[in-house]
């Protein structure tokens, strides 16, 4: 090898390595349930530390995709799911927050938050101490000993989020965490999540039905097509961080929103037409 080629090679390696270092890489992931093709050849890469939001019409397979990444469902043969570049068993490797909070009514806030830690075999007392220290960050100070039934919807979601954060994994999957909240609580929770994310720094894949939310939160917005779901569009969001609500009325925000709205609407119409047919 010549010196020049050697140098070039090194440059290429150096130049490429960090960018190619995908936390999660999906290649041609499909899934069929009987006659229903839920996902069709989904290709998606997520870089380390990135916050990616995923939107798409109802029933397009978003939760199915999450279940596959969490290791709860098998993808159909032919596709591959790579975590840190390796196709390993995914159960226990990804912090997954399902569409519902699924808190256990017989556990108080702290004990719900440490559920995953407990399953991992961490001593309860130590886990509770960690949770107690985190409670303030999650707006749960003073409610550590309350039971889920005694909490508001927003608080329940925060407990579920805390449980997900306490399951200390680099990749977090959040399935419509704020879907059931009223607009005001939701706006608060979004800002709060960004704040938490900047502090705990994880890679996040976040499902939402709300385009504003997708843009406000994400480094990148991914739009899925109507069923069978695949990636229709990816749009980088170059808006500066930290972001505040004033952003929602800026021209830059609206430009991105218009672009995404067109794509989402087109797909929603397809779902609608399919439902009517």
């Amino acid at each position: 090898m010549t010196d020049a080629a050697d140098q070039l090679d090194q440059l290429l390696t150096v130049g490429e390595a960090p960018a190619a270092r995908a936390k999660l890489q999906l290649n041609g992931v499909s899934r069929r349930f009987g006659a229903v093709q839920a996902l069709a050849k989904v290709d998606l890469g997520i870089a380390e530390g990135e916050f990616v939001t995923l939107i798409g019409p109802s029933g397009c397979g978003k939760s199915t995709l999450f279940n596959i990444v969490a290791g709860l469902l098998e993808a159909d043969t032919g596709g591959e799911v790579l975590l840190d570049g390796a196709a390993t068993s995914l159960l226990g490797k990804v912090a997954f927050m399902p569409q519902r909070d699924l808190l256990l009514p017989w556990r108080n806030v702290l004990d719900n938050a440490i559920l995953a830690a407990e399953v991992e075999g961490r001593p309860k007392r130590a886990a509770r101490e960690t949770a107690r220290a985190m409670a303030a960050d999650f707006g749960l100070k003073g409610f550590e000993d309350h039971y889920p039934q005694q909490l508001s919807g927003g608080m329940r979601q925060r407990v579920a989020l805390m449980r997900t954060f306490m399951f200390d994994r680099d990749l977090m999957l959040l399935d419509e965490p704020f879907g059931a909240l009223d607009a005001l609580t939701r706006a608060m929770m979004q800002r709060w999540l960004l704040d938490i994310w900047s502090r705990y720094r994880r890679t996040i894949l976040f499902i939402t039905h709300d385009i504003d939310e997708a843009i406000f939160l994400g480094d990148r917005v991914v739009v899925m097509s109507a069923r069978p779901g695949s990636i229709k569009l990816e749009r980088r969001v170059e808006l500066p961080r930290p972001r505040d609500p004033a952003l929602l009325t800026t021209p830059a925000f609206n430009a991105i929103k218009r672009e995404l709205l067109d794509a989402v609407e087109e797909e929603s119409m397809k779902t609608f037409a399919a439902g009517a047919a």
Partner: protein
Amino acid sequence: MALLRLVLPLLLLAALWEGAVALLQISPFYLPPLRQVLGAIWALGPAYAQAFMVTLGEAVAGFVVGGLVGVVSATAFHHQRWLRDMLFPLFVASQTVPVIAFGAIVVLWFGNTLLAKAAIAFYLTFFPVTVNALAGFEAVDPRQVALLRSFGASRRDIWWKLLLPSALPRIFTALRLSAGLALAGAIVGEWFGASIGVGAMLLAALFNEQVVAMWAAILTAAAVGGAIFGVVALVEARLVFWRDEL
């Protein structure tokens, strides 16, 4: 406060009993005054205490084993479909045998032992617990199971942290029902020739037409049933405190 809630209805019932007997002039043959019944128990205190303890022991032994077997069978049935398809019909069939017939056979096998009476109490207990525990396990939200699996939980973790606690309300419903059944089982067992125990007392009083002694035995039986039920309710209140709030 809780004590008052327990004692007040009892006092009310006692007053009603006494009042009715006095006011309606009920013949002692149909219903002797409560004073007289309590007097009889008081006079033969140790004998009634012994009967209470013996029957309680028999009923509790069958009840505890029945409860455990019920939960274990339900767990096995929940995890192994084939086991359920194979054994559950047998469980159901077993319950169609009248308890008297079952009791006769058991006493034939084990003689007049504690084991025989506990076996009959067991026979009446395990089935409702199995059915309810199984229903409890089946009612668990599969998304909840999926969540635990995503944390890398083993089957055992899932059982301890999710299935069992979720099923507890139904299991306790069955246990409360079974408390009375276990007592009935123990008493039936005593009817095949036992000389001590509440059931034996009941039968002796019946044969000798001692109405007061019969009512005294009935009260003692109620005390046994109440004791088991009370402990079950106490444990339930501790473990399933979250039930009403669902």
